[in-house]
């Protein structure tokens, strides 16, 4: 099948290929391989994850008529034996039908070249366009060289980013020296957290919801927010990360993440368009054993 399932595979059972998984699901493995596969399925949870995804992929392939006749017959005879699998095929079918109708319209935004909306075929258009670009270019050069003061009015000065460190809410609200009873006080969010004006944000697993790092989104020139997820130690394992809202709704995910050269952090680039002001959590899960760590931050 495809290499996507291989991404999930971990050391112990990676000798079971995607093709072997598919043949297992279609009841086509030899007796010896079948026995070994069954054993592995009970010993290795990552194989279970691969088989579950392969099951869905197979249901898709059947519903969208991508199976060869022999596979199709095997599917009907030996795969569609459970209610759960029949429901998977139903969902695959409605998904295919629902989105097939939109296929043309959904392709349009992706057409970077060769589209019908803007084709430069005529010589007049070509020359006109070239002349306009040249005029703009020359005008720009003239403006920058001859009128630097004029240009400075429009180019904002860049101020180096500065991190603001504030005490944790516990310390800020309940000072040791205070003689008053430790009643909770609401304060503006800026006093609760660290603020980063740069696109790189270091997140620590010890951070809680209450002292979550604050990320500023007002960086129109930056396509990504670069999160550095600090690991508890040096670890060369493969991870996947899920960025979720406070309510647990996934807004972004990334697969096949491994620690950089230092081995103690995972770099995650989140498209800035996926973030809105609010509270977020990043769930980082190690692929081979499913161990996960949650990192919290707030965006504004």
């Amino acid at each position: 099948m495809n290499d996507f399932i291989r991404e999930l595979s971990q050391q112990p059972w990676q000798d079971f290929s995607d093709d072997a998984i598919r043949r297992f699901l279609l009841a086509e493995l030899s007796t010896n391989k079948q026995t070994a596969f069954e054993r592995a399925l009970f010993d290795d949870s990552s194989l279970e994850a691969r088989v579950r995804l392969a099951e869905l992929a197979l249901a898709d392939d059947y519903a969208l008529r991508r199976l060869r006749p022999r596979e199709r017959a095997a599917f009907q005879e030996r795969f569609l034996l459970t209610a759960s699998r029949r429901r998977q095929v139903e969902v695959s079918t409605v998904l295919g039908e629902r989105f097939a109708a939109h296929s043309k319209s959904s392709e349009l935004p992706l057409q970077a070249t060769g589209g019908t909306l803007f084709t430069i075929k005529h010589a007049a258009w070509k020359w006109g366009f070239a002349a306009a670009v040249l005029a703009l270019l020359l005008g720009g050069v003239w403006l920058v060289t001859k009128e630097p003061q004029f240009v400075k009015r429009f180019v904002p000065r860049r101020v180096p980013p500065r991190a603001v460190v504030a005490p944790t809410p516990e310390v800020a609200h309940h000072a040791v020296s205070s003689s008053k009873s430790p009643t909770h006080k609401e304060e503006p969010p800026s006093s609760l957290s660290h603020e980063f004006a740069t696109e790189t944000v270091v997140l620590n697993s010890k951070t809680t919801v209450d002292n979550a790092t604050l990320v500023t989104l007002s960086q129109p020139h930056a396509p990504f927010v670069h999160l550095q997820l600090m690991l508890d130690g040096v670890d060369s394992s493969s991870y996947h990360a899920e960025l979720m809202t406070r309510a647990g709704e996934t807004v972004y995910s990334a697969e096949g993440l491994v620690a950089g050269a230092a081995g103690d952090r995972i770099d995650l680039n989140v498209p800035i368009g996926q973030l809105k002001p609010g509270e977020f959590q990043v769930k980082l899960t190690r692929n081979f054993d499913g161990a996960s760590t949650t990192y919290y931050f707030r965006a504004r």
Partner: protein
Amino acid sequence: MSPAKQLRTLQKTDFDRLLAWLDPNPERAGELYESIRWRLIAILAARGCRIPEELADETIDRVARRVADIEANYVGDKSSYFLGVMNNIHHEYLRRPSPPRLVESPEDSKVKEQTYLCLDNCLAKLTPHARQIIGRYYAADKQAKINLRKRIAEKLGISSGSLRLRALRIRTKLQTCIEQCLEMSEAEQ
């Protein structure tokens, strides 16, 4: 207490004991139970068994009834114990006369309509990004689909394999959501 009621009570006790044996944490035990049941069904189906869910449940019932006897001295991976019991049950099944092949009922248009409604509800719960991925993933057909996926993957800066994995993860969530929605609509009727 009637014998039937006594049996039900006994089964519940056995089942609770089974869960506790699997893991002292009830939530974790529930997950393990679901995982073991899924694996049993997958294996039985792969062996060509016509009633995999029924035999998987029979396996779990039989293990549950034995837990009281084995829990004190059992050593090793508990989930493997299920595999052994399932082998016995599968052998017994093979000795039974073949059950008649079930004829698939024609597709119920009401069910399909409801599935569409549930699909729309569940799609609405996805993030715009996830909805975009799933929509484009299922949009085109065959070669057009392959080309389209390549372009989507390039646009997102990920490999085609990662795109497929991501789409299938979203698809898994959709499946769960739609099944819950269908169950709720059935209960309402």
